[in-house]
């Protein structure tokens, strides 16, 4: 029984009077890909943002390789180096070129020298087919290209876990595919991933486990076949039905 890479124990989080996470228990094994599905406001984003300590949790514990990283007052910076996050709106640094966006993490945070950092960037950009955009600026790239750069930026830090927060929701449909290809690649390399998405078909294809979130709790979780094929909970069924009706499954 291997220690879970990431473990959330009874995590609670409120914004003012609004309880967004209402007791989350989740174990992520090394190399596992877990997809979070659920309606907007169900807490998917917040769960991810708490996992890399962007948001402090109110109660509960978050264990990373067995250590509680949610302890109040703990220095979060070293932890965040090991957990990568990719955002829905890419959030690339607009004043830096693509290469610099990818290289700046290793340079500033890991203290790698400029040449090595650039080499890392070049290699990642090549892997994602972005070599010809290496000197461009984010505002010159398409959405799909920007998101691939964002993933490369995160990967450059050599994270042990990746948190992907609806990374295709802001993309035009024809650009979604190139980003999902990258994620497939990450899975093939054995990356542990926590993945919030509306792309149900992709979730079905790539996940080891699917969690359905409803009002801040994991209402149901299981293999993709279980959740998509034979959902147990009423609300899960309703949610999936709405998705099917919208032609997204």
């Amino acid at each position, binding site marked *: 029984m291997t220690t879970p890479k990431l473990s959330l124990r009874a995590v609670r989080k409120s914004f003012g009077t609004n309880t967004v996470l209402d007791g989350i228990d989740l174990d992520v094994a090394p190399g596992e890909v877990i997809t979070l599905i659920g309606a907007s406001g169900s807490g998917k984003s917040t769960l991810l943002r708490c996992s*890399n300590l*962007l948001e402090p949790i109110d109660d509960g514990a978050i264990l990373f390789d067995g250590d509680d990283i949610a302890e109040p007052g703990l220095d979060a*910076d070293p932890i*965040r180096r090991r957990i*990568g996050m990719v*955002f829905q709106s890419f*959030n690339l*640094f607009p*004043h830096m070129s693509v290469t610099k966006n990818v290289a700046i993490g290793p340079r500033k945070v890991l203290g790698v020298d400029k040449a090595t950092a650039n080499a890392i960037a070049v290699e990642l950009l090549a892997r994602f087919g972005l070599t010809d955009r290496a000197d461009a600026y984010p*505002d010159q790239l398409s959405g799909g290209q920007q998101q691939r750069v964002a993933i490369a930026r995160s990967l450059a830090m050599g994270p042990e876990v990746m948190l992907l927060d609806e990374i295709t929701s802001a993309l035009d449909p024809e650009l979604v595919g190139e980003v999902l290809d990258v994620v497939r690649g990450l899975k093939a390399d054995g990356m542990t991933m926590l993945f919030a998405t509306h792309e149900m078909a992709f979730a079905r294809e790539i996940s080891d486990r699917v969690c359905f979130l409803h009002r801040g709790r994991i209402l149901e979780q299981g293999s993709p076949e279980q959740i998509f094929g034979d959902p147990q909970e009423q609300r899960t069924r309703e949610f999936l039905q709405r998705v099917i009706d919208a032609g997204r499954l």
Partner: protein
Amino acid sequence: MDSQTRREAYEQRQRRRSIVIASASTAVVIATIAVLVPRAPRWDRVKKSFFDGDIFADSFPRLLEAFWLDIKIFAWSVPLIFALSLAIAVSRNTRSPALFPLRAAAVIYTDVFRGIPVILTIFLVGFGVPGLFESRAWSNPLIWGSAALILSYSAYVSEEIRAGIEGVHESQRAAARSLGMTSTQTMASVVLPQALRRIVPPMMNSLVSLQKDVALVSLIGPVEILRQAGLDKSKLANFTPYVAAAVIFLMVTIPCTRLADYLLNRERRRTGATSVS
């Protein structure tokens, strides 16, 4: 294709028409001024008092030399203003509770120095502080006059920088922190570069304003261009030296405002803001 050409032809006609109308109306205005103003009853006296060619020529070199002092004061004040403003803006932006005294000090500082007119600050700092020193070198009004300008202007510029910092979207910070950057690294590498690009136009305004306020140092002794113009005015009993000083100021401030406009437009173009006609 046809409609394109038709629009082009139309716009060309419109352009020609507006050029003709603009030229004609400008010519009429200039002619009217040129004809009517000299007919004003006391134009001769005004001309002698304000636009005397001989006095202009006589004053000009002296004023130019005095202006050199203004330029020097401006040149060493600007970097110090920038440094102090940055320090204050960043101080105000800290979030850790341990740094509360720093934040409070920054708030008090900006409130006080934005609230007091620059002239007052120049007198209080320029005459008041040097009295504490024995050595002449340290009581020099250039030091304390500049200090007064720096203190006053930093209060304004720091607010501009702060507005710029707050204008950088929170998601940029989120992305930087997610990479593991410390808050200092985030501020230095991600937030500030974006903030400073945004605030170039208002900062240019502050700089143009400073170019003129430098003349206030004359109140505590140094003879810079405004004072020199006043000396000439008293000696020659004529206001033309002031007109000459104004010309010299414009020689510097107009290019600066044009530069500010250019930078503003370039920024607008870069961020893709489109205009609706």
